[in-house]
């Protein structure tokens, strides 16, 4: 038991797209930054790349992540987290700690946590209980790894691992629901019953916001649109109000950094113009839809037509992405299902007694749930494929902040409750029972 409710707990949710961190009890996370990091291999001593912008040198020198890098002699790389990623650096690759929604590189996660605690929240993790939101797909080994890192490296006084889907379900007032979490790197459907994730019901797909962004980018490219990342040009004012774009030659920029910057633009285009079509996308029917204009950072204005509807429809029909030139096929295309299919499959893997309840409590969450008309379309599609007796109801919080941060908000409220203070997995328990005790304390 951990009895320290006088210091506020920290809630952290590292998603595949962004990391959300903040103080328990707050309405929204204080720090939200990308979950990808910049990495420069430090193979030769002479290759210590000098930051080319003055602003960079200050954060570099007091980079809290540094000691960690020194420890990891085998990787020998310097990682740039958060805003440090906004500056282009020679030879800097952009890498992600996750693949398909689960952690594959703990060293990066460690750096992200460190950045969140020491640079953004400015706290000493040894003084604060930590509530970590974790994906439903996390394995027992991954949970133990997270707990071990927290207790050994950060010396936290207490820890709790809460499942994303459970937090979303609770934050909507439901102990039983079907959570459709469409995030950046993946979409996950999980049934929650009486506060437990039913593991056999969990369905995942690599089609999330990042994939849609890639499709948008490739589709624009195929139409001849050139997206210029902001770092690659200068704007010169040739006369008042009139600008000339001058391309910069930066040969040491990595392909992954170029892509990262282009994706940021494509993602904004997606968020600004896209809308889920009412029925399955049809190339012919949408050929003449009115276009919407969008101004790129370099000043050129593009017109987006059918893609406004086609891109989000990929959530329901992943095969549609294969009609876009340049989009990679799925490694195992048979397992990639549309959202509606995932919902039906997930419900069907649950006990017959609770299926009706699940169908009428479908909760939409995650960043991609903000796409217009997604809720309506999902409801319509599920209704068509579900048993007749089921009353299908899809819900999303009307508040876009609550929808995007539902997991973090749920964790924030939970960790701030006086009654919750007895639920933590404390340092003393960790020392007495070992790391595997996390499975008992946070089932």
């Amino acid at each position, binding site marked *: 038991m951990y009895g320290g409710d006088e210091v506020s707990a920290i809630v952290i949710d590292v998603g595949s797209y962004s990391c959300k961190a903040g103080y328990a009890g707050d309405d929204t996370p204080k720090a939200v930054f990308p979950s990808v990091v910049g990495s420069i291999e430090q193979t030769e001593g002479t290759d210590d790349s000098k930051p080319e912008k003055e602003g960079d040198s200050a954060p570099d020198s007091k980079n809290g992540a540094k000691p960690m890098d020194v420890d990891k002699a085998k990787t020998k790389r310097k990682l740039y987290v958060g805003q440090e990623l906004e500056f282009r650096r020679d030879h800097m690759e952009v890498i992600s700690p996750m693949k398909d929604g689960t952690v594959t590189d703990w060293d990066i996660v460690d750096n992200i946590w460190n950045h969140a605690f020491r640079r953004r929240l400015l706290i000493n993790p040894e003084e604060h209980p930590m509530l970590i939101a974790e994906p439903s797909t996390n394995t027992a080994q991954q949970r133990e790894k997270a707990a071990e890192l927290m207790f050994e490296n950060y010396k936290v006084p207490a820890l*709790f691992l*809460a*499942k994303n889907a*459970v*937090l979303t*379900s*609770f*934050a*909507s*007032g*439901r*102990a*039983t629901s079907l959570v459709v979490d469409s995030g950046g790197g993946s979409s996950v459907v999980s049934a929650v019953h*009486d*506060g*437990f*994730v039913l593991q056999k019901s969990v369905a995942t797909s690599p089609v999330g916001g990042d994939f849609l962004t890639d499709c948008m980018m490739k589709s624009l490219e195929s139409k001849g649109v050139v997206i210029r990342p902001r770092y690659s040009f200068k704007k010169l004012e040739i006369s008042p109000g009139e600008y000339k774009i001058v391309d910069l030659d930066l040969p040491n920029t990595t392909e992954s950094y170029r892509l990262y910057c282009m994706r940021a633009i494509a993602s904004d285009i997606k968020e600004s113009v896209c809308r889920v079509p009412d029925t399955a996308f049809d190339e012919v029917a949408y050929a003449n839809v009115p276009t919407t204009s969008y101004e790129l950072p370099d000043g050129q204005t593009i017109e987006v037509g059918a893609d406004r509807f086609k891109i989000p429809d990929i959530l329901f029909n992943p095969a549609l992405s294969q009609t876009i030139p340049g989009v990679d096929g799925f490694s195992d295309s048979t397992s990639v299902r549309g959202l509606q299919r995932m919902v039906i499959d997930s419900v069907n893997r649950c006990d017959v007694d609770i299926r009706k*309840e699940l169908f*009428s*409590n479908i909760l939409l969450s995650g960043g991609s749930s903000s796409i217009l008309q997604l809720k309506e379309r999902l409801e319509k599609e599920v209704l068509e494929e579900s048993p007749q007796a089921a009353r299908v109801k899809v*819900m999303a919080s009307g508040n876009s902040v*609550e929808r995007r941060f539902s997991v973090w*908000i*749920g*964790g924030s*409220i*939970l960790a701030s*409750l*006086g*009654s*919750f*203070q*007895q*639920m933590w997995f404390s340092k003393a328990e960790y020392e007495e029972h070992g790391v595997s005790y996390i499975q008992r304390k*946070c*089932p």
Partner: protein
Amino acid sequence: MANAASGVAVSEECVARFQELRAGRAHRFVVFKIDDSLQRVVVDAVGPRDAGFDALTASLPADGCRYAVYDHDFTVGGGGAQAQQQGEVVEAPRSKIVFVAWAPATADVRSKMVYASSCEGFKKALDGVQVDLQATEPSELTLDVLREHAA
């Protein structure tokens, strides 16, 4: 214990009133709430034996979460067409205790979170609930829905 359970306690009065309803059939329903300090579940209202389902729904706030138990009386047999054909019109009275988790969409996210994360722990404290009902709007909490769940 469910994942991410709140640890909210249950007052003895809750269990006592529930037992009076279950074993003594002294009440039709009991409404519970979590106290203002968010530490424990306490009794909010008790419905007399002659009260109906409408009285229960009327005692739930439109924009606040609550838990409730309701003693649902109904009959089985008799009504079925097949049974009538065979001349068996035997109506058997039955009753089931229904647990209601009321979390209207208009309630604030804090109270939704606290009620939902305390629900499993509270239900465990009440021994003898037979039917579960979670409702987020009045249309999900009607006598028809109740009958459907209890069937």
